[in-house]
C-alpha cells in the first residue's frame, strides 16, 4: 500500500470522485490555478478545467449557498472554506438551509453537498487561522459532521461524503495535512460515515478523540504502554450522528473515559460524550469522565508560549491518561 500525507489523500479522493462522477465539482477561494492555499486541489484545475474547479468570489455565505442551489439541481458540489475560522458567514446557509432542506420539504429536495474546511491550531495561526468549530455543527440534525485523523480515513470518508445524499461538513486537521502520513489502500474503497473506529484496543481506560488530537492520543498511548498502562483509543471520525454504541462498548469494557479535543472545554464535544456515558454507562464507570480540552478563551492566542499553553499535546494527554489510570 502506498504511503501518503493526509492532504494527498484528500486530493486523491476529490480527484477520483471528479473522475467517477461528472456531477461533482469543486468551488471555493483560490481552488483553481492556485490549487488551494493548502494545495488540496493542486493539479485539479489543469485536469478538469474551469467548469469543474471553480474559483469563487471571496464570499463564504454564497460559496455554500451556491453549493446548496447546485445540489438542489442534482449536482455534487464540494465547497471549500479556506479556513474553518471563516465558515461563520456561511452558518445561515449551513444550519438554516442545507441542514433543514430535506426535513422541511418532506423529502422532496435533497442537498448532496460537501463542505470542506481545514480546522485546528498549533500552526501559529492566531485567533483566526486556528479555530475548531465542530461543536457548532455537531449540534445540528440534518448535517453529518466528519473529522478524519489519518490519510486512509480522510480519503475513504471524503469519498463517502461526496456520495452521501445529505450535507456533510468535513473538517480536516490542517496541522496534520503534511505531518500525518499513512498507508492508503490501492484502488477503490470508501469508509462509511457513522461508525467510530477503535484505533488501539486496550483494557485500562478509553480515550475518545478525533482529528489531530486523535493522532496525539495514539502517541501518548504508546508512551503509556511503556509504563504498563493499556489505553484504548477510539477515533470518533463521525461526530454527528454520534456513534453511541462504540462509545458505550468501549467504556463498558474499560470503566474509564477521557475525551480529548482542541476546541474550548465548555460546551464542546466532550460534554456530549460525558453525558452519554453518565446516562447510559453509569454503572460501568469506575472513575469520573474526564475531558482534556483547550482553555475557555476566545481562540488560540498567537505568541508561541500562548499557543503551547492553549493546545493539548501528547505530553498533556499522557499526563491526563496517567491520572485517570491511577484513579
Amino acid at each position, binding site marked *: 500500500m502506498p504511503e501518503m500525507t493526509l492532504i494527498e489523500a484528500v486530493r486523491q479522493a476529490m480527484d477520483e470522485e471528479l473522475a467517477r462522477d461528472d456531477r461533482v465539482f469543486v468551488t471555493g477561494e483560490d481552488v483553481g490555478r492556485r490549487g488551494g492555499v493548502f494545495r488540496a486541489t493542486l493539479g485539479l484545475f489543469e485536469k478538469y478545467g474551469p467548469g469543474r474547479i471553480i474559483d469563487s468570489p471571496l464570499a463564504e455565505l454564497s460559496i455554500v449557498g451556491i453549493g446548496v442551489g447546485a445540489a438542489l*439541481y442534482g449536482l455534487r458540489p464540494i465547497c471549500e472554506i479556506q479556513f474553518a475560522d471563516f465558515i461563520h458567514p456561511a452558518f445561515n446557509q449551513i444550519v438554516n438551509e442545507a441542514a433543514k432542506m430535506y426535513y422541511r420539504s418532506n423529502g422532496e429536495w435533497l442537498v448532496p453537498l460537501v463542505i470542506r474546511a481545514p480546522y485546528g491550531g498549533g500552526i501559529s495561526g492566531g485567533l483566526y487561522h486556528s479555530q475548531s468549530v465542530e461543536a457548532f455543527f455537531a449540534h445540528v440534525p440534518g448535517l453529518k459532521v466528519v473529522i478524519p485523523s489519518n490519510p486512509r480515513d480522510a480519503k475513504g470518508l471524503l469519498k463517502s461524503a461526496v456520495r452521501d445524499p445529505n450535507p456533510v461538513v468535513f473538517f480536516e486537521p490542517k496541522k496534520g495535512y503534511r505531518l500525518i502520513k499513512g498507508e492508503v489502500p490501492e484502488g477503490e474503497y470508501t469508509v462509511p460515515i457513522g461508525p467510530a473506529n477503535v484505533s488501539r484496543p486496550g483494557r485500562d481506560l478509553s480515550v475518545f478523540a478525533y482529528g489531530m488530537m486523535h493522532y496525539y492520543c495514539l502517541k501518548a498511548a504508546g508512551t503509556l504502554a511503556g509504563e504498563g498502562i493499556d489505553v484504548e483509543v477510539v477515533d470518533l471520525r463521525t461526530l454527528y450522528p454520534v456513534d453511541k454504541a462504540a462509545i458505550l462498548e468501549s467504556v463498558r469494557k474499560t470503566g474509564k473515559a477521557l475525551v480529548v479535543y482542541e476546541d474550548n472545554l465548555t460546551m464542546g464535544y466532550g460534554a456530549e460524550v460525558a453525558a452519554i456515558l453518565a446516562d447510559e454507562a453509569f454503572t460501568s464507570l469506575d472513575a469520573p469522565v474526564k475531558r482534556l480540552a483547550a482553555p475557555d478563551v476566545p481562540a488560540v492566542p498567537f505568541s508561541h508560549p500562548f499557543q503551547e499553553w492553549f493546545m493539548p499535546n501528547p505530553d498533556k494527554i499522557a499526563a491526563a491518561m496517567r491520572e485517570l489510570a491511577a484513579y
Partner: protein
Amino acid sequence: MAITSAPARSRLDQEPLAGLPPETLLELYWQMLRSRRLDERAWTLHRQGKIAFHISAMGHEAAQAGAACALRRGHDYVVPYYRDLTLVLSLGYTPRDFMLGLFGKQGEVTSGARQMPSHWSLRSANVVSTSSPVATQISHAAGLALACKLRGDDRVALACIGEGATSQGEWYEGLNWAAVHKLPFICLVQNNVYAISVPVDRQMAVPNVADRAAAFGMPGVVVDGNDVLAVYEAMKAAVDRARAGEGPTLVEAKTYRVVPHSSDDDDRSYRTRDEVELWKKRDPILRFRAKLEAAGLLTPDQQSEHEARAQAEVDEAVQFAQAAPYPDVALAAGGVYAPLPQEA
C-alpha cells in the same frame, strides 16, 4: 417618508395587450382573481380564529402572475418567497394545497405540515423549498442557474424577494455570482414600499433597487408591478436574455401591500389610511379587468363565471382542509436524513 408616487414605467402604450392571445390573458386574470379570493378567505379564517397565521399576496398579484407567465412552467426553476401565493398558484399549486398548509393538516404538499403556511415547495413544478430567513433563496437560485449553465441545459432560475430583504448580504453575494458567471438568473424584487414597518428609504439611499444592478454589471429594470402585462413583458425580456446565455437581470416591480405584513401585524402604527386607500385604487386586478373589458375580452357574464368558479374552488378547499386529519405525530421525528442509495 415612504415613496407613494405612481410606479415608473408601462409599455402598454405601445403594445396594449403584450401580444398575448385571449386565452392567456384570461388565464392571467383568473390566476390573479382566484389568488385574491383565496387570500381574502385566509384573512377571514384567521379572524375567526380557525388558523394561526397568514401572510398575504394582496396587491402583488400582477407582479407574480406576470412573472409566472414569462416562464416555462415546470421547466424553469423558481425559488419564491413567502408572499408568492399568486406565483405558486400559477405554477400548479392548488387551493387545496394552500388550505392544507394554513391548517397544518395531513397531506400538506410543501413540507408535510412541518413548515408555517406560505413556505412553498413543489418539486414537480421545480418550485424550490423556502425557509423564513430572508434572502437565503438568492444564492440557491444562482446555484441552480450555475448548474443549468454547467450542464448546458436551457432552464433559467428565478428568485423572488422583497425590497427590504435586498439589504441582506446574501442578496449581494448571490447577484454577484450570477453576474460574474453570466448565469441564466433573474431576480424579481417585489418592492411594496415596506419591510414590515420600515419604509424603503430606510433600506437604501437610491430610489430604485434596480439602480444597484449597475454595480453588479447586469441590467436593472423598473416596472409597474400593478400592471400585469408590463411585468410580463419585463420578465419575458429577462427570461429570453437568460435563456440566450446573455446573463442575469434584476427586475424591480413597484407595488404595494394593501394589507398588514401578516396576520400578526398592525399597520396603523406606521402608515396612514389615506396612503393605503390611494393604493387600493391602483388595484392590479381591477386595472386588468378594466383593460380586458375595454378590449371586449371579458364580458359581464364571464366575469360572474370567474367569480363563481373562484368562490367554489375556495369553498371546496376550505372544506377539504377542515375535514382533513392532522398528521400523525410520529411523522415529526423522521425524515431528517435522506437514506443512502443502498438503504433506499
